[in-house]
């Protein structure tokens, strides 16, 4: 029973923080709210007997991804972002279709009921979630596990290729020219 109420509380907080994420002007607050959402979801995962995922959620999402976010936000000029006007007429259409989508999603979520007793890859009663994940990840999901390494490799390449600063060919020369012109003045 207490678990149920805890679930309600965490979910409520998660939704509130999610709304806060998208309506903050300052990206730093947004990121903070998002971290909050993730923590709340981690709590929910614990309630749903997925402790391993909860831990990973905190370590990977909060500890790595969101740190990266905050790091990048710090590199950018936040002042400009603060000037964004949130409410004006042009956005009404976006809000309308967003709310329509939301309503449809809620209807689906409300009417969902499980018809199947047992899904694929059954979870034995005596194993905890970490063991389950380990068992299936290295047997049934071995190929996806290897393929995800390719995806991560691509991510690394992307970060390296796009993130590295480089001068265009010949720009250096122009700079020198500009400098010399500047010095003559």
């Amino acid at each position, binding site marked *: 029973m207490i678990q149920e109420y805890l679930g309600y509380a965490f979910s409520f907080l998660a939704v509130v923080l999610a709304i806060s994420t998208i309506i903050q002007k300052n990206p730093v607050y947004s990121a903070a709210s998002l971290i909050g959402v993730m923590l709340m979801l981690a709590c929910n995962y614990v309630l749903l007997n997925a402790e391993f995922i909860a831990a990973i959620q905190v370590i990977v999402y909060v500890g790595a991804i969101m740190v990266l976010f905050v790091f990048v936000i710090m590199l950018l000029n936040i002042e400009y972002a603060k000037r964004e006007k949130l409410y004006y007429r042009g956005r009404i*259409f*976006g809000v309308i*279709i*967003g709310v*329509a*989508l939301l309503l*449809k999603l809620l209807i689906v979520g409300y009417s969902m009921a499980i018809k199947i007793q047992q899904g694929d890859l059954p979870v034995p009663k005596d194993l905890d979630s970490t063991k389950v994940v380990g068992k299936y990840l290295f047997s049934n999901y071995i190929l996806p596990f290897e393929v995800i390494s390719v995806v991560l490799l691509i991510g690394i390449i992307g970060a390296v290729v796009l993130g590295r600063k480089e001068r265009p060919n010949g720009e250096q020369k122009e700079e020198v020219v500009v400098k010399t012109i500047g010095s003559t003045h």
Partner: protein
Amino acid sequence: MFDFIVLIPLFPAFGAFLNGIYGVFRSNWADKPSHTIGIASIGLAFGLMLLLVYKMVSVPIVLLALVPALGAFLAFIFGYRWSDKLVSIIGVGSIGISFILSVLAFWKLIHLEPEARFIEVVFYKWMISGDLSLDIAFLLDPLSAVMILVVTGVGFLIHVYSVGYMHNDPSYPRFFAYLNLFVFFMLILVMANNFPMMFIGWEGVGLCSYLLIGFWFEDDYNAYAGNKAFIVNRIGDFGFLLGMFLIFVTFGSLNYKDVFETASRVLSYNGFTVTAITLLLFVGATGKSSQIPLYVWLPDAMAGPTPVSALIHAATMVTAGVYMVARCNALYTLAPISMAVVATIGALTAIFAASMGFAQRDIKRILAYSTISQLGYMFLGVGVAAFSAGIFHLVTHAFFKALLFLSAGSVIHAMGGEQDVMKMGGLKGHIKKTFIVSLVGTLAIAGAPGLSGFFSKDEILWQAYSSPYGSVFLWAIGVITAGMTAFYMFRWLFLIFFGEERMDHETKHHIHESPNVMLVPLYILAFLSIVGGYIGIPESLGGKNHFHHFLEPVTRYAYKIEGPHYSHALEYALMIVSVAVAFAGFAIAYICYVKNPSIPVKFAESYRNIYRWVYNKYFVDELYEFLFVKGTLNTCFGLKAFDEKGIDGAVNGTGKSLYWSSILTSKLQTGYIYHYVWGIVLGLLILLF
């Protein structure tokens, strides 16, 4: 035994290919051997491909001996520097070989039994999927035999003529490449044994026509004319394509043989499907053969070089519609409504185009309207189920209209590019040979008894009266048109060759007769225009009507209705009426443009007389305008206005609405990511609900 007919279209294709390569690469053509070898290898590869494909047709292996022969041929060509002379040899030679092969095919064909004159040669099985098989296959039957003779024969003469006419043009090889390509597609069109292949030819000739109209594309007007022809033809092509789809849906096949043989069983007489099919096909025909309401492009198409006008826009391509209707006679005869539409459109086009011919000043535009009018005749012929008469007129028209155009070209050549007939006159003495052949052509088109036009036109008129699909109205329109034709064609002749010399002094000084390479084709065409009619002398005149009997097997699947029989006396009477009307047209033209008030002998007398003559001539013109301005001319100017505003407007209107919707859709593409997200969410919502 008939396998060789596949070579008939292939030779023009080969010529087009070689000249095209040369035309494209000429600007950076060097004497480097590498270029020569490169092009030679391309040519060899092409030849080899032809032969490989040819081999798939299970032709005797002996033909493979052609490979070394071809190699030697290419070595000969590329061993020397490529020149314009070589271009003409390739261009004309390939058509010439085609012509010889066509004659051979025809010769072999008429030695078969009439029932056996239906030969299909499968060249290559293009695709087979399910129940549909599409072959590149050629059909040789009396109809296509006649057509290939006309196409290659007249085409050959016009090619020869072009050698003289186009010489010194900077794009000489390109011209011959296009012209050969056109002949290739035209041969595909007439030799196809199924609808898709016919459609390929149909589109191909349209493309070549577009390219050739805009041949001198440096001039904006020419490019405009080319675009107009292209757009109008596309409209017609939808009709053709839809008709083709409908045939496929109905018959499950697109082969002529399958469709026509089963037509009477699959379709009901006067049923909706057959009417829809035939009307849709006819929409295609109105585009290609420039009938009401899609005739507007043809007069503008005269922007192309004159040999093009002669070959494409008079003798061959524009008659494709007539050929198509005649080819589909088994379908058309099942749909009396369509037949009536075809005949009516043909008759109306004939008379309206003729009336428009009155008001033109451009030497080629007059002929263009005349072509439209004569095409109307042909449709009138096929529309009253007189298929052989229509094709007969097609053949004779090819002769005399090509002759007229080429003579016009010769006149333009002589005048140094001048095309306004009001600035000509009195050329009879300067270019006598051209005058004589023009006279023959004019007499033939006017229907002078004994010349080719007389027989074919009379055959159509008689059938318009006597056929079960015909009526006295159609006949009357035809006869009136005959008179009008005689009038404006003689007006054309008189304005050019008779009367005062209205050109300026310098032009006059440079008038010269064309070279022999242009004149010889004219002589041959003139000869054909005179004797061409004797292949189909009607029985009432004591002839055997060989042409009709030769084409009879083509209409064997046609739905036949028995019409009433008329006596020969009636036929004579009608014939006399039409000749009389034609003569009246000639007489009016003569009075208006030559006789009144003076005769050419008085030319040199004095300036005063000449002045008076000019005055009177204008008086005649004004009288003529005064008399007709409230009648025909008004109509015809009105039609011209309608032509320019209404139909061009419709064509442009479609374009414009497309243009604006395009701008509108581009506006949707704002460049903002969130708008794109809106699009995605909207799509998601559509999918979810």
